[in-house]
């Protein structure tokens, strides 16, 4: 009787997860294995893959200047956009976590830039705003500052893309907002009774209670920023002189412009190793700053 019940639960379990399981095997596991194999071959899609041993990796690490450049560009992008985005989205989420009339409108207004996403609209917008005679420079000229052509200047082009990424903080903000709603109000009330001020409440209640959400946003933020593609693809096309040639764009062009599928697969695997290492580091570090409620208090 018992085993029969157990096996029917087993069957039901696999029935329910089967859509994901099939997708995982077909569109994730198999492609991962195949891309690992392809990274050791030369493959142009038209002919069969030809075994090349470590050739792709050797070329990438020893003679490919673009690889180094795109890696540096991507690291810079991640280094600036992730912390800035986390900071802004937390700040805004706290401002929006109030019972005010018209909150729907504020939320929609602030989320709006994120809805535009990576569409061509943004490319047009950004090129005009940050152009040599664009709006930003006009505002700067009121203060006597002479701007440059922000997007065509190699020193500032990446900065405009970072700004664009930070401007679209909506999804991160919404996740923070959801996290804030979960912090029990009693905690704040109890703290008020004990005479805690606003700052004190933020550091002692909000931040620790929010740390799992912060961690989630941080990990996904880093992973997503390493894959940043659309902005560089449509706003700057990687230029000027490769100043915004991010890693994903490099990989995309190797694969779908030059049809060097083997080389691109090797690039993908290098990216995977970098991202995995950083994520592991994050998980390791999280032990020291992420606070899980269930550890301290018995979850009901």
């Amino acid at each position: 009787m018992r085993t029969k019940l157990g096996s029917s639960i087993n069957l039901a379990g696999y029935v329910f997860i089967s859509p994901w399981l099939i997708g995982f095997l077909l569109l994730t596991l198999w492609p991962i294995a195949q891309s690992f194999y392809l990274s050791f071959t030369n493959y142009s899609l038209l002919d069969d893959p030809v075994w090349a041993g470590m050739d792709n990796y050797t070329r990438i690490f020893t003679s490919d200047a673009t690889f180094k450049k795109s890696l540096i560009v991507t690291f810079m992008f991640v280094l600036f956009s992730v912390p800035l985005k986390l900071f802004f989205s937390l700040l805004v989420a706290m401002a929006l976590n109030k019972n005010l009339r018209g909150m729907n409108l504020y939320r929609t207004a602030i989320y709006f830039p994120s809805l535009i996403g990576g569409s061509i609209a943004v490319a047009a917008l950004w090129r005009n705003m940050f152009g040599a005679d664009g709006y930003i420079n006009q505002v700067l000229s009121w203060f006597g500052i002479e701007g440059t052509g922000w997007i065509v200047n190699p020193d500032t082009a990446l900065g405009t893309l970072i700004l664009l990424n930070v401007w679209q903080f909506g999804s991160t903000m919404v996740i923070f907002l959801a996290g804030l709603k979960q912090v029990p109000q009693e905690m704040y009330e109890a703290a008020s009774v004990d005479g805690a001020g606003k700052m004190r409440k933020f550091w002692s209640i909000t931040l620790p209670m929010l740390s799992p959400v912060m961690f989630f946003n941080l990990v996904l933020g880093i992973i997503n920023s390493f894959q940043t593609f659309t902005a560089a693809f449509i706003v700057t096309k990687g230029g000027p002189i490769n100043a915004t040639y991010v890693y994903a764009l490099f990989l995309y062009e190797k694969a779908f412009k030059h049809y060097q599928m083997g080389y691109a697969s090797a690039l993908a695997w290098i990216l995977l190793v970098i991202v995995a290492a950083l994520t592991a580091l994050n998980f390791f570090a999280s032990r020291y700053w992420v606070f899980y409620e269930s550890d301290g208090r018995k979850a009901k």
Partner: protein
Amino acid sequence: MKTRQSTLINHVLLSAFSLLMLYPVIWWVGASLKKTSELSLPTIWPSVPMWENYTKGWMFSNDFTFAHFFGNTLWMELWNVVGGVTTAAIVAYGFGRLNFKFQGLWFSILLLTMMLPGQVTVVPQYILFNNFGFVDSYIPLILPHFFGGGAFFIFLLVQFIRGIPRDLDEAATIDGASVYGIFWRIVLPLLKPALVTVGIFTFIWSWDDFFSQVLYLSSVDKFTVGLALRMFIDQFDIQWGQLLAMSLLSVIPSAIIFFFAQKHFVEGIATTGLKG
């Protein structure tokens, strides 16, 4: 008295910030009505609004109007949302409620896939779809949504399902309901707010998923709105006014959906949103 004052301050600050965030968008609205020669002027509003930016932009392609591209995108979105919402609910119930063998292992793998850069799988996926002859069709864009809608959504729903009291399941079991019956009659109805969130996110994200669209769609009659807009940029003489006008129209569906659903949106993510 004091709370009234702080409410006012809140309103002022939030309005100012909303304005700052929306400033480029306001400029955009004005610019969409400008002549090309007026684009670089500091004024927000054009001297003479060029409404024909909209009419000409709408019909800029010789073969298709934007109605065709909107139709294409909405058709694709319909399947994406249906696929994502139904399969994510099914898979999440399996992970959230049923203690089957290796459940923990599979769930860890699911979470791991969330951290996998898409670039690692994109080349073999392309080869796979190419071998099946699916390139230049919507299948590579739609099909992945039918496999659980993505690890992020499954994770979200599992968290939600874990918040639903087990007593309900037990009562139903005593009444003779099977696991399938519990899913259909108890869990699914309670899951609605979270499913709305999944639906909205799916809609907005796949509307924006430019990368896959560039990769898999190549013939103009199948183009999505995003790809159609790119045709403006590829022209020799870029019609900025028309481009800005059409791109403004292109964000309206997502904006409307977000405005009407943003309450569910936030609450759906909060795993405790089960009071109602």
